[in-house]
């Protein structure tokens, strides 16, 4: 999936995370801010990278500001931000890429 513009999803409220996605020239770059980065940083990155891979995102700069989100929340916010950034809204392939 091609990232065409900057997009954001999620909030900075407790138990949520805010994910921003922007176009990049090459590769996936993931920046993470979290109060529990030492405990869960690796797991958050893993969930985010898996989600990006499943969506077929090859080039993007992604930033996650985590406020204690669960894995399912992180996945949903990454998916939503990518869909918006790829201008895919309204034609999401539920059960396909998003499952």
């Amino acid at each position: 999936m091609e990232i065409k513009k900057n997009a954001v999803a999620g909030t900075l409220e407790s138990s949520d995370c805010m994910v921003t996605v922007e176009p990049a020239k090459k590769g996936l770059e993931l920046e993470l801010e979290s109060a529990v980065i030492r405990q869960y940083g690796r797991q958050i990155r893993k969930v985010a990278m898996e989600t990006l891979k499943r969506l077929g995102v090859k080039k993007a700069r992604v930033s996650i500001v985590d406020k204690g989100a669960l894995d399912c929340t992180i996945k949903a916010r990454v998916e939503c931000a990518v869909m918006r950034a790829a201008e895919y809204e309204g034609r999401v392939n539920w059960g396909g890429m998003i499952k």
Partner: protein
Amino acid sequence: MGISICNTPLSERQHKEYLRLLEACGLRDEGDADIIALMTEDDILTACGALAGHTVKQLAVAPDAEGQGAMAAVLSALITEAYARGIHRLFLCTKPENLRMFGSMGFYTVIETKDAVLLENRKDGLSSFLGSIPKYDGTCGAVVCNCDPFTLGHRHLIEYAAAHCDDLYVFAVSEKGSMFSPGERLEMIRKGTADIKNCHVFKSDLYLISRATFPAYFIRDESRADLVKSDLDIELFCKRIAPALNISRRFAGEEPFSPVTRAYNERMKELLPANGISFEEIPRLAEISAGRVRRLLETGEPEKIREMVPESTYEIIQRRS
């Protein structure tokens, strides 16, 4: 509990409540907001925040609503709205004691002074701006100008400055001017100085005289010029921009008209030398000012501006009409 995003101006009732909340939090309305987020609970305003250009400001939470995540909710709503409007670089100015809170919300320090700190929502914003600008070895100087439009007065200043350093950076203010677009102004400056070989013209981006670094310059409330806060802008230039580009001199035109610009120059006289950068104010060419040119254009007398602007500026002005 709900947040509504409102276009300015607010309704009379909303505005009154908004002012009351700001006052309760020791803030005043700077009046330059494009949109305002209002958070209400049982019809009572509990938190607010605003977006002015690329800057998040006027963030306030009612004392009895603190500690319930209201700030995070308002900031989230503003960021989401900004992105929806295509604005994804965001700045925020706050007191140093709030640094940690906004740091945990994805805002990073651009410059910190004794009583204020400017934050941006990306770590490498300033460094990638500086990285995009070529570096020169000799004595470098800088001029930051609005040039709305570029006149022979600006040309005079730049000629003088270029003659007093090996390489001169001219930074064109990137915010929307009162008459000409940032693109038009950049073109006017580039064409109007093309023959000065050691003069290099760049956009100031959002880091020199922008609504983020120096809001008072754009609010232009001349009656409060005594309160003009330009320290963030000047410190940012001294501590981060000048060292990266090896700039040791700054030049500006003398300002007889605008109290805000005059206050800015006065402050530069104090802060620049303290940071090892010389500052020189060049007397203005008589009878020439961008403001005068704009007024003549507004009153439909374009012929009269010919002796005040370079031919290249005149052509650009002709082209748009």
